[in-house]
């Protein structure tokens, strides 16, 4: 890179130095599409429609995640009462924030946990720390089950009605208002 640059060299330099603009422009267009998608409701980074809403849970069978016992689609389909299935991970901060809510909820509604892409030892430590809200816990180390369920991230919760049908879905950490105003009334109606 010296002062007396020949024309092809200068062209090369021009291209090189336009690269940041091109990258930034691409990012800008992407962000604009995300924002306009968010306004129209076609793009929502916080929530995706569960593909299986009002349909039976997809097939899966997952191993135990200590201290709980693993479960699969067959267990959920055999259910007679509603159960909340909660995807969590020890590396997920909203999950940390959600735990007190789940612990408050567990007496009114059984909660089954699925540890998403989490080392079993880490997940065990997390559940111990949080005061284990889960009746059963399965380990989805590869994250494949989560994909089938349409999980967008952790924490994510699904209300499973009798017969293993997905009745309700939340892609955000549960808060007290959602639990009391939506989730519990819905669970009560499924029980009746």
């Amino acid at each position, binding site marked *: 890179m010296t002062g007396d640059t020949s024309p092809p060299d200068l062209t090369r330099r021009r291209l090189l130095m336009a690269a940041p603009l091109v990258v*930034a422009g691409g990012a800008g267009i992407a962000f604009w599409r995300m924002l306009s998608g968010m306004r129209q409701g076609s793009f929502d980074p*916080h929530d995706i429609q569960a593909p299986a809403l009002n349909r039976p849970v997809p097939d899966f069978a997952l191993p135990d995640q200590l201290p709980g016992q693993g479960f699969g689609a067959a267990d959920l389909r055999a259910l007679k009462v509603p159960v909340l299935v909660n995807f969590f991970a020890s590396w997920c901060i909203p999950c940390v924030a959600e735990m007190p809510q789940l612990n408050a909820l567990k007496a009114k509604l059984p909660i089954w946990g699925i540890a998403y892409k989490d080392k079993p030892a880490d997940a065990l430590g997390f559940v111990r720390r949080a*005061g284990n809200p889960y009746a059963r816990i399965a380990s989805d180390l590869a994250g494949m089950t989560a994909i089938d369920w349409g999980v967008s991230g952790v924490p994510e919760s699904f209300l499973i009605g009798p017969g293993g049908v997905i009745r309700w879905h939340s892609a955000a950490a549960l808060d007290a208002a959602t639990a009391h105003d939506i989730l519990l009334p819905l669970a009560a109606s499924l029980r009746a």
Partner: protein
Amino acid sequence: MTPELGNFALALACCLAAGQAVLPMVGARRRDPRLMALAPALAIGQLLALLYSFACLIDAAINDDFSVQNVAANSSVAKPLLYKITGVWGNHEGSVLLWALILGLCGGAVALFGRDLPSALRARVIAVLGGVSAGFQLFCLTTSNPFDRVWPAPMEGQGMNPLLQDPGLAFHPPILYTGYVGFAVPFAFAVAALIEGRVDASWGRWVRPWAVAAWCFLTCGIALGSWWSYYVLGWGGYWFWDPVENASLIPWLTGTALVHSAIVVEKREALKIWTVLLAIGTFSFSLSGTFLVRSGILNSVHAFANDPARGIFILGLLGLVIGGSLLLFAIRAPQLTAGGVFAPVSREGLLVLNNILLCSICAVVLTGTMYPPFMSLLFGKTISVGKPFFDATAAPMAIPLMAFMGLGPMMPWKRAQLWPVLRRLWWAGALTVLAFAVAAWQVRDLLPLLAATGAVWVIASSATDIVERIRLFRIPLGASWQRARMLPRAALGAALAHAGVGVSVLGLAAMSQAQHRIVEVHVGQTEMLAGDAWTLTEVRAAPGPNYTALIATIEVRHDGRLVTVLHPAKRTFASQNQTTTEVAIHTNLMSDLYGVLGDRHGIGTQATYVLRLHYNPLAPWMWLGGLIMALGGVLSLSDRRMRVGAPRRAATAGLVATS
């Protein structure tokens, strides 16, 4: 009436900023001294108007003027005075006004301290700052006005999130924002230099103090934020790779690269184009971080009221600022001529390496942060990227960075030989080997082991640098002292900042060995953790001003000797239906004993309590290191030659190397 005056002052500031953006720029082009002289006057005028506007908002908050929507939504009569004031910037609208105010302060600072800059350059720098200011003030006025009224005015405000009611968080945003916004000044210098088509050693000299000052604030801001999440969230963690945290780390990494590459511009007139790009990039990342957090594109625990309409406005603003500056860069930068050549093994060479590594880490963090929304947009796939990704990718790159950090300051400019430098560092090397041996005996994991070793190397070699410069033990002590007093503060500051990195990394490495236990105990029961006996002696209820608290007493004994008594508590805020945990921390600077009170099970004498006990070795060092880094920056800012007021000598001083 006061809020209207504040609103008016904000509008006035916006008009002044628009004038500040246009008039001096035209003046600099036409070489009209009268128009150029308007720049500082407009910048100071804008700053005064903003200060008045901000004071009006604080006044409304202190006087509980709930007819102001922003105060009604975030304050209440019972809130302590301190939090009424700090609550002003604890929400979206107020924080945007704070942003604008700090930007105004930057413009005012350039107007005041930049008297010795060439008048055309100063006019252009202030004009660029004015343009950015005008954009943000317009954003504040149109989409996020903190002075909006609400009718009918409620009798009582909705109060503040109890988690935010904390002195650490109260002062965190101003410091962090000063860091973010401070990089607007190097950005303005870069844009002004591109307009002029000239980047030389004196440009490097002028831009560096501003970059260092912003970097100091950003460093403090990040450390403070991390400390807050450690002692408030109560999970014993200090960094979660949350998008908001990453949004502050990314400009910090490029800013650190900028602080270093500007030295090369100043001393050797090399890396000019790269430095200009870094200056633009750092501020662009600061801006984008703010935008991403507030638009709702990124999932984060730090919830600001998300609003896509706001997002569109900020995106347009970003397009103008970032797109405009990069367009200018694409047009002008190819014509900038490169300066001094240097051998790969030289101080420049190592600084280039530093830049490459810092930018690689930055690229990794950026990828991890942006991957989820981009995957979702392009392929409709939804994924989340968490701690395992960052631990596996960003951390390993920090190890070579530390290895070179030790060598860099000892290297001569232009062309160097490795061997003499290594020979001067022999005892630092010996200490490092010793540290490795000791650490390998204690620590089984490779990454913390290497990190701790690297940290010792960085600290030892920084000390060697100073020892060598003052020729300690080679010449009489008095003479060494004399040399130490004559030592450029910039060199001392650099050594201190490097040592600060080492201290932080030692803390991080030690924290990977932290131990914790979750126990469920009766009152009177004792549990062991890391050689200490923790006994829960009492749990009592205590009412607070707007909450009820459950306070535990935990006695920690080591070999029967009382170490400390901890009082972790749990507060229930009835009005917000929220509980917060008050962590109890006992520190002796070498380790933290960290106790958290969890749920109560059962009642009366049968009651058991869940306790979370943490033993966190060297935890305070992580933030102490950040403070040392910032102090190093301040020390080098106090160097006479770093001051902006010495440009005349600066033109020649490029030849006078520090060592």
